[in-house]
């Protein structure tokens, strides 16, 4: 029997104050990001902010500085450039609300046709998004997050108990906020795909929390003499090796995606990678300690379980 961890007996609950401190910082970071998003200061992708993105694939390598000066000479001083070295690809983004009316995508392509006439290229992709769509997508993203949260709290409240649902929801929010904060710190662009990643990791983190809760619920039934802290601690320890093994496989998969999935899902897999780590941490150090703080009555749970 190969084991990463043998039978463990780590006292997770007693370390909850450190955990709350760390999580507090993470949540604060996430909240700041949310405020920045609301103020329009965060690095929102064009699918939310509106604008134009054009990706060109050149035959020969190009110097990004040349491209930048060419663009600013031709009326795009605000264009953001990003280079993908495999395949001489260049991504040009212009984040302005009315790029679609001004036919920016076409003008960029023409600018490069003239400016780099020796270096032929093909248009890999071009995206133009008007401001109305951006707002619609923002609204939909918010609705999606709210609805999935409500659905999950309801499900857990029915299957377990209301406070379990709330604890799981807090842990999940914590994860989403933490990843959002990390992305903000690294100045990653928040796109529709990133929101998808956030929702996926919400699902993952929940699965993780549910597994731990499930064991705690089971223990509450059989170990009636022990204190709540002991019951919760042993629950976490019992599922610890499962938690580690699953996180490890998911991380393996995400690493494959991160390095070989191509530029489109690069940030997506990065967000999930951070999310898995935070999600594993939160089901142990955030969700379970909340149950200790918010004790509730054991009897009620017993009848329902």
């Amino acid at each position, binding site marked *: *029997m*190969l084991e990463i961890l043998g*039978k463990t007996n780590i006292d997770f609950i007693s370390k909850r104050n450190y955990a709350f401190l760390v999580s507090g910082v993470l949540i604060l970071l996430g909240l700041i990001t949310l405020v920045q998003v609301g103020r329009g200061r965060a690095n929102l992708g064009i699918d939310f902010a509106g604008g134009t993105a054009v*990706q060109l*694939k050149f035959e020969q390598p190009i110097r990004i500085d040349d491209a930048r000066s060419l663009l600013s000479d031709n009326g795009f001083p605000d264009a953001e450039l990003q280079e993908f070295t495999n395949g001489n690809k260049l991504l040009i983004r212009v984040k302005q609300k009315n790029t*679609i*009316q001004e036919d920016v995508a076409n003008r960029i392509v023409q600018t490069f046709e003239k400016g780099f006439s020796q270096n032929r290229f*093909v*248009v*890999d*992709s*071009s*995206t*133009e*998004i*008007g401001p*109305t*769509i951006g707002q619609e997508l923002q609204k*939909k*993203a918010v*609705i*999606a997050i709210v*609805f*999935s949260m409500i*659905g*999950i709290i309801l*499900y*857990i409240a029915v*299957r377990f108990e209301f406070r379990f649902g709330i604890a799981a929801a807090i842990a999940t929010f914590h994860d989403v906020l933490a990843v959002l904060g990390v992305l903000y710190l690294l100045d990653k662009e928040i796109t*529709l*795909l990133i929101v*998808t990643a956030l*929702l*996926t990791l*919400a*699902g993952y983190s*929940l*699965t*993780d929390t*549910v*597994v731990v809760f*499930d*064991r705690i619920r089971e223990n509450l039934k059989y170990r009636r003499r022990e204190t709540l802290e002991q019951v919760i601690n042993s629950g976490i320890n*019992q599922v610890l090796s499962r938690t580690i*093994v*699953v996180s*490890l*496989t*998911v991380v*393996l*998969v*995400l690493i*494959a*995606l991160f390095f*070989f*999935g*191509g530029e*489109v*899902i690069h940030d997506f*897999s990065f967000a999930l990678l951070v999310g898995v780590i935070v999600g594993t941490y939160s089901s142990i150090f955030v969700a379970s300690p909340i149950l200790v703080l918010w004790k509730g009555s054991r009897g009620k749970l017993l009848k329902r379980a």
Partner: protein
Amino acid sequence: MLLGITVLVSIIFFLPSTPVYNKLPDWWKKYMPSRGVTLGLDLQGGIHMVLEVEEEKAVENLVERTATSIKEYLDSEKIPVQSVKRTGSAELTVTVPDAEKKADVEKKIEANFPNFVPKESSGPDLVFSLREGEVIRIKDSATTQALETIRNRIDQFGVAEPLIQRQAARQIVIQLPGVKDSKRAKELIGKTALLEFKLLDEDSPLARTLPLSITPSNEETFTAEYGSKVPEGDEILFERIVDKQSDEVRKRPYLVKKRTIMTGDVLTDARVNIGQFNEPYVSIRMNGTGAQLFERITAQNIKKRLAIVLDNNVYSAPVIQDRITGGNAQITGSFTTQEANDLAIVLRAGALPAPVRTLQDLTVGPSLGQDSIRMGIRATILAGILVILFMVIYYRMAGVIADMALIINLIVLIGALAALSATLTLPGIAGIILTIGMGVDSNVLIFERIREEIRQGKPVRLAVDGGYDKAFLTIVDSHVTTLITALVLFLFGTGPIKGFAVSLSLGIAINLFTALVGTKVVFDFINSRWKLKRLSI
């Protein structure tokens, strides 16, 4: 048994997407599914657009046209009015200088133009507004008509499996998979294609002072200089001239009368022909009413110039030599054969009832799509190998069973995607890969439980049963919660996100099935065959 059938069916559905399919016998292709997995636009390249119909413009156009007809009608009744003008989005004002005639004018307009109701009257002005119900009807039919027209145009352009759909009240979603010349396709779709015939105003002194042509960059100074001098009822429109040698674009201004004497809705056909100097032109044919009208107009305006205007651009302004009967006319201008072809298409399909605005436009070139597929497959295989290796190393024989379940999962998942004709997008591939990772979760939960039972000294058979029993609820709970998020993503997601949600929720459901039923059967089979004393887990 059940599992075997499921896998077989999945493979049958998935086959058309693999190279093997082409080598299969004909009877197979005839009776078995042939679609395979539909690739999303991001994987096969193409255009995804969201357009918005500017419905108010349709209302304004109607009011504008009615104003012209009211003026013509009053003229023919010999009632002198100063002007009939559109003064609001759904309002028009008739200015009657003779106060005594006002009541009469109001009654006549009400009787002959029942869609308009008198709203107020002050001084010489009579204000009429379009009925509320009529406004709604026009707005609604504008989008429906635009949808029909765009569908016609795309059909004639020739795109395999286009998707053209109404979304929300006034938006139209268009998906054109595999279209390579995106610029041309967009022009074809977005052009209003309103064809108008207008007379030139050659009597005005301004007409003689206009420059022969200007460069497009000079347009602002031009408007500043001449804009204020344009007489009432006239406007300046431009013709685009391209120099064949230098490709230089210039614009020639024309002073034309605002009043449209005929529009393109009388057309029955439009074809491209090649003229004697090898230049393409479009010949148009009109229906009976159009032909009669055209004959009358040409007869009344011999030796005058008639401008052929498309979307406010003059194509040509020939001198009418003689009365033209039969309803045939030609549109010449400096265009290439392809431009002439596209012009013929839009003229045949008809004009959009109102201009459309592009809200969203995603274009993916075919090379990016192929890159993405290649990378997606590579990442999937790599992720699969990593997980399979890990499971075997960590759980030995049980790991092999879990790996089999994993592979079956993947096959069934892809088969299910094909069977449901779901669209596979790049995020969809990410979703598949993610299910590989999450798919082992249930097996890990079960195996850890079995290990616990074994540690307590239970015999193999009981340990396996106990492990499955105890992990059951946990697995159901954890899958349902993930399923909830996946479902919400599916409901509120758009385009690529939907693809992700589809593969993730299918993956979770299939995984639930294989984990709870599939692997257990294998364990039981091995157990009953060899009566294991020790379990390799």
